[in-house]
Structures are given as C-alpha cells and as structure tokens.
C-alpha cells in the first residue's frame, strides 16, 4: 500500500465531501421545490455551467475508458474527438430553444416537454422510461471507474471488506446529493476540474519527456493501431464506423437526462450558447487524455508484473492508472486519482438527480399521486435519487463489470430513439404523437436487434446496401428507421385520430 498516495487521495475526497454538504446553502433556495433541489433553482451562470457540464459530460469513466480504448484498439478510440467536436454545433443550434420552452412552461425533463407538445401520455412515458433505463448503467459505470482507481491505490482489502472503500464513497455521494441537490455536484465540479486539468497537463508534458518525446511514443505503436485501416473492396470499413460513431454519439449526448438537467439549470439560453463555444476546452483535454493510452503502450506497463493483477481484473481500463503509478511520485498519484474518483461523483450525482426528476415528474406525479404537493414531490425525488444510486451499487457489486459496459452500450442505442420527439419536436409539431411512439418502438426493437446480432459485444453494425457494406453505429442506423416510420405513419394517424396533432407551446410555436 502506498500511504502517501492514499493520504492525499483521502484528504481531497474529504474536502469535496464538506463542499458537497455546504453546497446546499450556496445561493440557497427552498429545497422543498423540485426545481430548486433538482435544477439548482435554474440560476447557474456561464462559469458554473461550464464546470457543471464539463464534469457531467466528460465523466470519470470517459477519462478511464477512452485511453483504454486507444490502448486496446488503437486509432478508433480517437473517435471521442470528432464526437466531442460535433456536439457543440448541435448544442448551439438546438438546445437554447429547449431551455426557453422549459423555462416558460416549468418543465424539468424532456418527457415534460413531449407531454406538453404532443399531449400523448404513452409517448411521454416512453421518453421517461428510456431516459431512466439508459442512465442507470451509466451511473454503474461511474462506480466501475471509481473501483479501478481504488484498486490502483492498493486499497484492495480481502473478502467481506474488499468493497468497503467503494461503499463509503457511495454513501458520501448519496448523502450530499440528498441534502444539497444539484448544487452539490456544481460546487464539487469546480474543484474536480481544476484537479483534472492539472493532472492531465502534467501527464502530457512529463510522461513524453520520460519516454523520449512524442515521436518515440508513436513509433512504438504498431501500424494497425496507429491509424484507421484503409477500406478495401466493397466495404467502407473503419471509415464509416468512425464517422457514424462520432455523429451518433454526438446526437445522443444531450438526449441523456443528466445532460438536459445540467442544461436546464443554467440561468439563460445565452449561457448555453456561450458554453457551446467554451466547453471544447474539455474536448481538447479529452484528446490529450486519449493519447495517454498510447503512452501506456510505450511505457510497457502491461508487461510489468507489478500491474499484472490490475490488468487481470480490469483489462485495458487499468492502463491509465498503471501509467500514473509508473510515472509519478506518490503524492501526485494521489492528486490524479482523486481527480478521477471525484470526477465519478459529479456525473453520478447529476445522473441520479436526473433520474429522480424523471421518475417523480413523469411517473409518480403523472400516474401515482397526481395531486402531490411541491414538498411531497421534492421529497419523493430525494428518495428516488437514493434508490437509483443503491441500484447502481448493487449492479456493480453483484454483476460482471462487462455487463454494465454492454448495458451502457445499449443505453446509447435506446436514448437516441427519443431524438424525433425531443429534438425535432422542438422545431416542428408536424409529426403525430402516435407515429412518434411507433417510430420509437421500431427504433428500440431494431437497434437492440442489431446489437444482439453482434452478440452485445459492440455497436458497429455491418449494413449491406446494394452490394456495399457500410459498417456503422447501430444507434444512428436505428434512429433513421425510427424517423422514417414516424414520418410515414404521421398522415395515417392524422386521418384516424384527427385530435392527436401536436400543439404550439410558449417559446415553441
């Protein structure tokens, strides 16, 4: 065990715990109101939103998994860069309008909007359930990220106690989220991001110096990992896979409940537009981080017996922690690992709040207790945030990690099926609610079928068109079918049920 690293790590963790509890008093509001607890009162300005969204979108798991993908699979892992480039034009053009309509109508979830827009309860329920189901495994993955870090610190106790550090971290997370709502991750994100910037910038300067420069690092990467394979014959090969992964992931990102929660907590639509211009700093950071995967190859951490146990348990996900242990003194390892572990707390908190908002607003209030008071609504949300996190913890502790990863892969395919109702619904109400529901169902079934045909191991589906093979992201292919179904069925449903057209909302004609 490395007591210096553990000491620094624990100290920083305690610091953010205190911040998390005090955050509730910051610009305090009445936490018995759901939009105060669950959206921070919608008053975060440009800078806080930058930290909050940065911590929310670029999660701890991203910081572990992206370099791990580079480490294991090579250049294709760099799709995270075009992905995080393309999200910002989409954010800039589409989501200020969502902020607007949510603000004017008191919406806190995408399902709220869909219900108001299409007046179709089954459709709104489908949107809410998709959000819940897609987010659960995402929370579990944050805990997986934390588990890797805890193991790398050597806090591996045996038997019954082996998961104790993770359980403690979880209790801390659950408690401050319950007490402070969205203000807690917002405040903690500020600390976490400073740590992560320091850790990554130090890593991309110091490690290449130790390894003899970037030229040497890239020279040690095998040619098939260094760039994408060139397409051969009648297949577009890695190219269509790379581009569709980037676009599909970018389209899906702001459909996730936790992204929308952070967006809606900002104080104005201008805050969102400004953030579309300044959030790419995190994309740049992620690009640098991805290169750490190659540095781990160059440093030869996998053949070092000291890390054999870690690689055996976590696979490529252990590459970055191993690289840090290899390259830095103990105290700095503590800082970097704390950055990643705290980086798991922020999105996990926001995700559980987003799930709580969804369940409370669109299931509890809609179907179980329609006449609930504001205080009851807020209390229910706090309770759900606990249940959701406990579920994620049980998920991680009892099931194979691979299961969480595969489930999250499916989550991406599912959440994108809400695109026609949510994103297109913001700009036109031409589509019929029932047609949208049919499209959603078609997309879910076909997308899941594509993943199943790949044995749930990947999401690149080899689509055959006119003798050509276009391997591409199943989420993107299935949402195209979803949209086609919705468009084709709209005139039909308009004929059968003329009263079921969408309606104009304030801020959303």
């Amino acid at each position: 065990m490395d007591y210096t690293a553990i000491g620094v790590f624990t100290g920083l963790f305690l610091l953010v715990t205190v911040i998390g509890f005090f955050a509730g008093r910051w610009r305090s509001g009445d936490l018995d109101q759901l939009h105060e607890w669950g959206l921070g009162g919608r008053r975060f300005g440009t800078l806080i939103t930058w930290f909050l969204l940065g911590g929310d979108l670029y999660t701890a798991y991203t910081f572990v998994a992206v370099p791990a993908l580079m480490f294991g699979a090579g250049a294709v892992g760099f799709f995270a860069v075009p992905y995080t480039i393309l999200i910002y034009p989409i954010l800039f053009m589409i989501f200020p309008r969502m902020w607007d309509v949510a603000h004017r109508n008191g919406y806190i979830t995408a399902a709220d909007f869909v219900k108001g827009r299409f007046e179709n309860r089954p459709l709104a329920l489908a949107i809410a359930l998709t959000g819940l189901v897609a987010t659960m495994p995402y929370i579990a993955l944050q805990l997986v990220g934390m588990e890797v870090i805890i193991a790398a610190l050597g806090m591996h106790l045996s038997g019954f106690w082996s998961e104790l550090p993770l359980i403690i971290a979880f209790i801390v997370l659950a408690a401050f989220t319950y007490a402070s709502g969205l203000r807690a991750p917002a405040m903690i994100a500020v600390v976490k991001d400073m740590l992560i910037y320091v850790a990554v910038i130090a890593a991309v300067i110091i490690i290449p110096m130790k390894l003899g420069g970037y030229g040497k690092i890239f020279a040690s990467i095998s040619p098939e990992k260094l760039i994408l394979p060139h397409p051969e014959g009648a297949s577009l090969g890695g190219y269509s896979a790379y581009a569709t992964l980037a676009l599909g992931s970018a389209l899906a990102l702001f459909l996730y409940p936790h992204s929308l929660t952070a967006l809606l907590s900002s104080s104005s639509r201008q805050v969102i537009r400004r953030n579309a211009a300044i959030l790419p700093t995190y994309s740049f950071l992620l690009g640098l981080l991805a290169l750490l995967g190659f540095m781990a190859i160059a440093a030869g951490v996998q053949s070092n017996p000291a890390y054999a146990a870690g690689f055996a348990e976590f696979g490529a996900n252990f590459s970055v922690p191993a690289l840090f242990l290899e390259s830095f003194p103990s105290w700095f390892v503590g800082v970097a690992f704390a950055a990643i572990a705290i980086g798991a707390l922020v999105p996990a908190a926001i995700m559980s709040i987003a799930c709580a908002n969804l369940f409370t607003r669109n299931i509890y209030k809609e179907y179980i207790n329609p006449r609930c008071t504001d205080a009851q609504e807020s209390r229910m949300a706090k309770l759900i945030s606990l249940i959701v996190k406990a579920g994620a913890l049980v998920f991680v502790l009892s099931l194979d990690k691979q299961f969480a990863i595969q489930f999250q892969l499916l989550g991406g395919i599912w959440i994108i099926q809400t695109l026609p109702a949510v994103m297109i619904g913001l700009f036109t109400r031409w589509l019929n609610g029932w047609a949208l529901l049919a499209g959603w169902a078609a997309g879910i079934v076909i997308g899941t079928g594509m993943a199943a045909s790949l044995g749930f191991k990947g999401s690149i589906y080899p689509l055959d068109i006119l003798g050509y093979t276009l391997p591409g992201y199943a989420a993107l292919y299935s949402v195209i079918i979803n949209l086609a179904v919705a468009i084709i069925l709209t005139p039909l449903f308009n004929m059968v049920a003329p009263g079921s057209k969408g309606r104009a909302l304030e801020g959303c004609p």
Partner: protein
Amino acid sequence: MPDAQEPKPKGRRWRPLYLLFALPFIAMFWVSSYDRIEPAFYGIPFFYWYQMLWILITSALTLFIYLADER
C-alpha cells in the same frame, strides 16, 4: 421568474450564418482526408493533430457565430 433579465431576446431565429456549422461535420465525415501519418507535427501523426486542430477551429467558429448573432 427571471425572464425580465432578457429584455430583447436575440438569436432566437434560425439564420443562414448557421450554415457555417456544416464545416466541422464535413471535415470530420471526410475520414480519408485525415487518416494518414504524414505530415507529422513534433512526432504526432497527422491523424491526431489534425482532429485536435478541429476542436479549436470549431470552438472559434462557435464563438464567431455567437458574437455575430448577438449584434
């Protein structure tokens, strides 16, 4: 409700200026244009530094469109 903070909402309509946002999509979808090693930059293959450069270009583009929209 703090709606009064925004007396004159700007950038609410879709503008032809937004067509500039097609640039990063075209650049990133044109994978064959950047799937190469040379020219390298300080030992970093073209594939990597070119895509990193597009992060900066897209950010600058967004800022430009934001400012043009605010006027």
